C-alpha cells in the first residue's frame, strides 16, 4: 500500500503554520518544561460564530485541516480520519471538574459533547458538510499510524480518491500536572533547543496538530510518497527492535532517519543502540526539541520528512551530526513512546 502526500498543514510550537513547513529560524523557548503551539488567528479560517464553542485543540485541528485541504485543492475529501492519543483533554477536564463541583447536577452540555476523541474529525465534517467516511483512532502513540493505515487501505481498495488524515494532541495544565506526577517530564526547566544533550530522566511535554492530504496519484505539488507504516508493541529487547527495523526498511536502507530522541536517558538508549547498529552510517535527525513529547508527535516528524523530500533541504536544527550535501530520496521516521509503542513510517520522494 502506498499513498502520495499532496498537502500538509501543521500547527506546532514552531512557525510551521504561518511560516514555511521546515524551520529556518527555529523557535527557542528558555526555561520551559512544556511547549505550547503557536496558534494562528482562527477568525481568518473559521467563522467566530462557529468556532465559539470549540476548545483550543478543536480550533487547531479544524484550522490545520482547512489549510491542508486548501493547499491540496480539495473541497470535499473522500474520507476524514484523525488520530489522537488523549483527545480533547481541555473539554474532558472541564466536564469532569463540573461533575465534581456541581455534584453531578447542572452540567453544561458543550464540554461533555466535545470531550470525545472524535470531536475534531466531526467538526471538520460538519464545517465542510462532508458526509463521507469519518473515523478517529485513539490508540495512544499508535493513533497517527492507525489513522494513516486506515487511509491507505481506503485508497488501496478504491473506497476513496483522497483522504484527509490528521493527528493531534494538546497539553493542558491539568494533564501536565498528572503526567508530571508519573515522572514523564524533566524536573528542571530547560531550553528546548538543548533537549538532545540535556541528560537525566524525563523529557519536555509538547503538543501539535498536523494534517495530511493523501491520494493514490501524484500531483505537481506532491510532497512525498508513504511506502510503509509499521508498529511494534512492547518489544522484548533491542534485538527484536533491530530485527523489526530491518523488516521495515526491506532491501534498501533509508538515506536518512528521523528519530524520536527526547532527552530521556533511559529510553534514548534504544535510539543510541540503533544508531550504532541498524542505522550505522545513516545520517540521523531528531525533532522533539522542536515540538516536545506527545502521543502523536510522529505526525510532526512525518511533516518534516515530507517537507525535506519536497524542498530538498535539511533544517540545520534537526541534524545530529555530519551530513552529505545531497538530500536522500528515502526517509524513515522512527519513534517510540517510553519504549512501549514503536512506530516506523517510510517515505520516499516522488
Amino acid at each position, binding site marked *: 500500500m502506498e499513498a502520495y502526500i499532496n498537502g500538509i498543514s501543521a500547527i506546532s510550537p514552531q512557525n510551521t503554520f504561518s511560516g514555511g513547513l521546515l524551520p529556518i529560524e527555529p523557535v527557542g523557548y528558555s526555561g520551559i518544561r512544556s511547549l505550547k503551539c503557536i496558534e494562528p488567528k482562527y477568525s481568518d479560517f473559521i467563522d*467566530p*460564530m462557529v468556532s*465559539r*464553542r470549540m476548545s483550543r485543540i478543536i480550533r487547531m485541528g479544524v484550522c490545520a485541516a482547512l489549510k491542508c485541504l486548501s493547499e491540496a485543492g480539495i473541497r470535499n475529501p473522500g474520507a476524514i480520519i484523525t488520530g489522537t492519543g488523549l483527545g480533547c483533554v481541555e473539554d474532558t477536564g472541564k466536564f469532569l471538574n463540573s461533575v465534581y463541583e456541581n455534584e453531578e447536577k*447542572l*452540567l*453544561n*452540555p*458543550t464540554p461533555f*459533547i466535545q470531550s470525545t476523541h472524535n470531536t475534531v474529525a466531526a467538526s471538520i465534517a460538519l464545517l465542510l458538510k462532508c458526509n463521507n467516511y469519518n473515523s478517529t483512532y485513539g490508540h495512544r502513540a499508535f493513533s497517527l499510524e492507525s489513522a494513516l493505515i486506515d487511509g491507505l487501505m481506503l485508497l488501496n481498495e478504491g473506497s476513496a480518491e483522497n483522504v484527509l488524515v490528521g493527528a493531534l494532541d494538546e497539553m493542558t495544565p491539568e494533564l501536565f500536572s498528572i503526567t508530571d506526577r508519573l515522572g514523564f517530564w524533566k524536573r528542571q526547566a530547560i531550553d528546548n533547543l538543548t533537549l538532545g544533550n540535556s541528560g537525566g530522566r524525563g523529557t519536555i511535554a509538547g503538543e501539535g496538530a498536523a494534517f495530511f492530504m493523501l491520494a493514490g496519484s501524484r500531483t505537481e505539488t506532491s510532497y512525498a510518497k508513504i511506502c510503509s507504516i509499521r508498529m511494534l508493541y512492547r518489544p522484548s529487547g533491542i534485538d527484536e527492535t533491530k530485527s523489526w527495523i530491518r523488516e521495515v526498511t526491506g532491501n534498501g536502507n533509508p538515506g536518512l532517519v528521523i528519530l524520536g530522541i527526547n532527552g530521556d536517558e533511559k529510553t534514548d538508549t534504544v535510539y543510541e543502540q540503533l544508531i550504532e547498529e541498524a542505522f550505522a552510517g545513516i545520517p540521523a535527525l531528531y525533532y522533539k526539541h522542536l515540538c516536545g513529547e506527545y502521543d502523536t508527535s510522529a505526525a510532526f516528524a512525518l511533516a518534516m520528512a515530507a517537507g525535506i523530500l519536497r524542498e530538498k533541504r535539511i533544517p540545520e536544527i534537526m541534524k545530529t551530526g555530519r551530513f552529505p550535501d545531497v538530500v536522500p530520496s528515502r526517509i524513515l521516521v522512527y519513534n517510540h513512546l517510553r519504549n512501549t509503542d514503536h512506530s516506523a513510517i517510510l517515505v520516499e520522494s516522488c
Partner: protein
Amino acid sequence: MEQLEQKLKEEIITALNLSEMKPDNIDVNAPLFVDGLGLDSIDALELTVLLEKKYGLRIQTSEEGKKVLYSVKSMAEFIRSNNKG
C-alpha cells in the same frame, strides 16, 4: 435598559462564548434562535443550565422552554414572574 436584561445579556455572552458580541448588539426583543442571534439546540441547553444555576429556575416542559428562551425579554419576564429578578 432594565438592569436584569443587561445582566442577562452579559451572562448569555459568557455562557455561549459569544466573544465577538457586545451586550448592546443584542436586541432584547429579537429571537435568540435561528433568525436573531442564530443560536441552536446546544445553546438552548446552555441557557437552561444558566437559568437553573444563576436563578434557581427550572424549565418544566419543552413548550415552556420555547416561550421562555424566545428572547432576552422573555427570559427576564420568566425570572421576574418567579420573583428571582
